[in-house]
């Protein structure tokens, strides 16, 4: 009986599938027919686009704001700029040893010897590649942005946690802040806050604040009800409860937020070179301009190393100290598991001695200072003296650090000037990288390959899709998108989709947005073709996965226009290069989530399949893949969003579409044009994001996950 029911259900599902597939096919065929009918690229009728002069409205609005309110933004900008210049001057004019100590000591204290040594390496790398100044400028910009993000973000997060209404009000704003490509507000920021540090910091705040607001909010909300109840029963007021119980308990979550803010701020600060902010971003951009791969690579590595350092540093605060039993000897530098090797023990022995010595010196130094202080103050007040003495003794790393830093600046100003990073220590990796790339560029076999690939991608994928999407009448595409929206999400979303697409069309940028869409689709398709197999290999081979994870981490931390040059060198300027750069940038999520999805499929399923005699391929095809679909779709979704984000920089190497419109808007100081195109990218990204998310949800529900 039950088997009958299920077979009937199966039948109805498969017949439903047939209907769906034939509908899709029919829609496609009609679109194809329509596209062959049309003479040129489809556009909204001139009557509409001439009436809907969004560009002109924005420009008029901007002029009005500039005329009447610019003085306010100017004051804000000048304050931020002054603080930024102050920090920058301090960093650049200080002796390099002082800066090194200021970075090294906190890393050493917070993250142990491993992080300390790593930070020394990073500092050396900055200096050795001649990126000392730009690196510090980037640090200054990032530091200020993070500081302001934390102050504003934690406040907003606390407010969200206290009021549901405020939280509901903030949610859509935070969503928008995260989806909007930074370029869209980077340029208006330029017009209101001038060029350089101030707009960069403000734009960075917009970009990187959401995680800290969210994590503060959830952190506070997750404080257990029992804790709160016991605190209330002891008679603490609402404010006391918040500041003494809730915030301290949610500190790990807040620290996670700060960690994410740092990473995001670093990514945007690099991008801010487009609005005249100094730093490594500017170096990389100049390197791109001069096609100097080695130079760009050095800049990229500076950022990469810096990011890892700050990441580990801020992570060390949110991690709890793991304590080993005191009789087990603890390794300082190498992994504890290497204890069985003699060499490891030999390396660790002197380190152990050194650290013991440092500890001894630090503790005694601090104790004696504390004693002196205690003695001096105890003349007037005994209790305060003991408190202060204790407070000093507890911080036995910080006080010696201060002394060391003071000593350096004293030596610099009164004895010998230390100055900036010594020239003799320069070590450039520019030449080898550049010559390696150069030799590849003239290698006939390689060029034949790149040419073939270029031809294939352009002739077989991009051009047909470009022509198809631009030639299908706009109302038809709009209808198809709304229909997809209706079937996957619902009627409300279908209407919103239609309105958003109408907006794009009415702005007169329909053809450009279709070109952007086709570039994104081709890039994502290529990501899929390349990424899924890599993910499968990674899911079977752990060593491969580990290596791949390191590479992917690095790829995601490198500023994304670093990829532009090698691609440009090998594939020449043009649309195909733009696509390939997009693929490189947006492939990591799909690889990661494929391998994650496949490894997560529990062993029992594949065991069962194998015991029934399924081959490896069958298990993969019939069991693992269907179960990993939700994970795959999330990867696909992230890849799509990243591909859209990349559309903004690809015009630098010949990309077309909305990204180019944004650039042209900037170059002609036509904010309206740039903004319309930027919004177009955002809207397309939002529509596709929502549709694929809804689809994932349905898949999950169907699988009963």
């Amino acid at each position, binding site marked *: 009986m039950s088997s009958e029911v299920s077979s009937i259900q199966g039948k109805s599902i498969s017949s439903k599938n047939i209907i769906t597939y034939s509908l899709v096919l029919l829609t496609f065929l009609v679109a194809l027919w329509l596209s062959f009918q049309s003479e040129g690229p489809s556009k909204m009728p001139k009557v509409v686009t001439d009436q809907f002069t969004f560009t002109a409205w924005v420009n008029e609005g901007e002029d009005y704001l500039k005329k009447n309110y610019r003085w306010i933004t100017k004051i804000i900008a000048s304050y931020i700029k*002054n603080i930024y*210049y*102050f920090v920058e*001057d301090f960093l650049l004019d200080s002796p390099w040893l002082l800066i090194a100590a200021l970075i090294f000591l906190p890393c050493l204290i917070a993250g142990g010897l491993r992080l300390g040594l790593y930070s020394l390496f990073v500092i050396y790398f900055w200096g050795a590649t001649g990126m000392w100044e730009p690196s510090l400028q980037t640090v200054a910009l990032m530091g200020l942005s993070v500081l302001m993000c934390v102050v504003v973000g934690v406040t907003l997060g606390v407010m969200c946690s206290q009021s549901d209404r405020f939280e509901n009000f903030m949610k859509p704003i935070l969503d928008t802040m995260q989806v909007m490509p930074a370029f869209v507000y980077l340029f208006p920021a*330029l*017009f209101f806050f*001038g*060029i*350089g540090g101030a707009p960069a910091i403000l734009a960075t705040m917009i970009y990187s604040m959401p995680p800290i607001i969210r994590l503060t909010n959830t952190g506070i909300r997750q404080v257990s009800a029992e804790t709160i109840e016991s605190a209330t029963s002891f008679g603490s007021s609402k404010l006391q409860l918040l500041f003494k119980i809730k915030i301290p308990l949610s500190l790990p979550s807040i620290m996670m937020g700060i960690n994410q803010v740092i990473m995001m701020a670093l990514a945007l600060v690099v991008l801010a*070179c*487009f609005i*005249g*902010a*100094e730093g490594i971003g*500017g170096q990389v*951009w*100049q390197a*791109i*301009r*001069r*096609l*100097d791969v080695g130079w760009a690579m050095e800049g990229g590595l500076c950022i990469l190393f810096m990011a890892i350092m700050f990441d580990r540093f801020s992570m060390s605060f949110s991690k709890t100290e793991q304590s080993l039993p005191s009789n087990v000897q603890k390794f300082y530098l190498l992994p504890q598991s290497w204890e069985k090797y003699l060499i490891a023990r030999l390396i660790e022995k002197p380190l152990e001695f050194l650290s013991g010595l440092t500890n001894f010196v630090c503790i005694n130094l601090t104790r004696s200072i504390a004693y002196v202080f205690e003695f001096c103050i105890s003349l007037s007040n005994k209790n305060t003296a003991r408190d202060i003495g204790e407070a000093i003794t507890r911080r036995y790393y910080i006080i010696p650090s201060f002394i060391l830093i003071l000593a350096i600046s004293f030596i610099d100003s009164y004895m010998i000037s230390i100055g900036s990073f010594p020239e003799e220590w320069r070590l450039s990796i520019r030449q080898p990288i*550049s010559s390696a790339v150069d030799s590849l*560029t*003239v290698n006939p076999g390689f*060029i034949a390959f790149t040419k073939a690939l*270029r*031809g294939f991608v*352009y*002739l077989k994928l991009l*051009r047909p899709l470009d022509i198809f999407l631009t030639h299908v009448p706009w109302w038809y595409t709009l209808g198809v998108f709304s229909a997809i929206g209706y079937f996957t999400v619902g009627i409300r979303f279908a209407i919103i989709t239609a309105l958003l697409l109408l907006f794009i069309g009415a702005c007169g940028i329909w053809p450009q947005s279709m070109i952007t869409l086709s570039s994104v689709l081709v890039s994502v398709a290529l990501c899929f073709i390349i990424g899924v197999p890599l993910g499968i290999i990674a899911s079977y081979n752990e060593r491969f996965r580990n290596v791949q994870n390191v590479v992917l981490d690095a790829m995601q931390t490198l500023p994304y226009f670093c990829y532009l040059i090698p691609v*440009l*060198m090998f594939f*020449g*300027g*043009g*649309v195909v290069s733009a696509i390939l750069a997009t693929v490189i940038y947006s492939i990591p999520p799909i690889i990661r989530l494929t391998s994650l999805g496949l490894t997560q499929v529990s062993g029992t399923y594949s065991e069962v399949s194998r015991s029934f005699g399924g081959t490896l391929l069958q298990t993969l095809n019939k069991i693992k893949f269907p179960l990993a679909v939700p994970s795959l779709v999330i990867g696909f979704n992230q890849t799509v969003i990243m591909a859209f984000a990349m559309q903004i920089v690809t*015009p*630098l*190497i*010949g*990309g077309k579409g909305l990204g*180019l419109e944004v*650039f*042209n808007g*900037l*170059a*002609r*100081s036509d904010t309206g044009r740039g903004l319309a195109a930027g919004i177009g990218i955002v809207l397309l990204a939002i529509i596709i994001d929502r549709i694929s998310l809804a689809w994932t949800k349905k898949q999950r529900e169907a699988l009963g996950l």
Partner: protein
Amino acid sequence: MRLSKTISALFLSFVILFASLTQANAKRLHAAIADWTGGIITCEVAVGILEREMGYKIKQTVFPSGTGLWEAIAAGELDFACESWPSYAEADDVMFNEDLIYDGKVVKSYKGDGTVDLLGTTGIIGMSDYWIPRYAAEKFGIKTWRDLNKHKKEFATIETGGKGRLIGCPVAGWNCHDQKRLDLLGIDFQADELGTEAAAVAEAKAAYMRKEPFLLYLWSPHWFFGEFDMVGVGLPDYKTCAGDTFTEANNWKTCGTDGWPATGWDKDYTMNYGNPDTFAKPEHAKAKAFFERMKLDNLDQAKMLVEVDIKKRDVKEVVNEWLDNNPDKWKSWLPN
């Protein structure tokens, strides 16, 4: 008691902050770094002299050239920028209110609102044209732009289909109007805008190394001509568009084939420009006088271009070397 202490401490730190800021601002100028190597070198020469001889500290910011740069200067965000090419600055005609003088002769007069100050010519005289490699010119017998259509198939790429391809002006903000010019002259080519000088030149270099025919927009002085043998296609001589000039402000009105952009470019007496308020200040009078006298030679710039773009050396290093070796050339630019 405690509050007043905090306040006084705060006050003190602010005083120190502002004191250090005002002190640092005394002889500071903020310049733009251009987006093509020639412009960067010219500016670096000016910056080098201002810093070495006149005690300035110059802050430099990478900024794409185009209208945005003019607005940044007018707003006082930047103090000066170097080597503007008059042909490329058409939309900015409104900004200057001065005559452009070279060797005592007025080469162009501007009647703008004076929100940007013309600091003087740089000495560099630029020329822009469309070029083809000599081997292609000889192989197909191309003498002028009129012969291009006959061989458009040879100049086509996979992206342009049946049309020939022009590796066009890379940056839209430069106002080259390549496609418009090609259409007006009836050249059946498609202009490709590759986004950066580097991209365009890399494309051309690769094509040259493979001995393929290609049509390239390029300006001189440029290192490309030192490395590769190129011939101009001799576009029609520059003619102004009488009455309706061709600018963004008048919605790209055009005189058809009677004037720009249906012609080649005019000879460009390039100029430095800056913020009028900055250079009206008495403390910057000497800097202004220096800019009036500056006169860098095309040949000198070309030599430095080779060092920078072909030998891949650092711009600052190359310019400093030139300053060290040629004091006779630039000492006369210094104000008395």
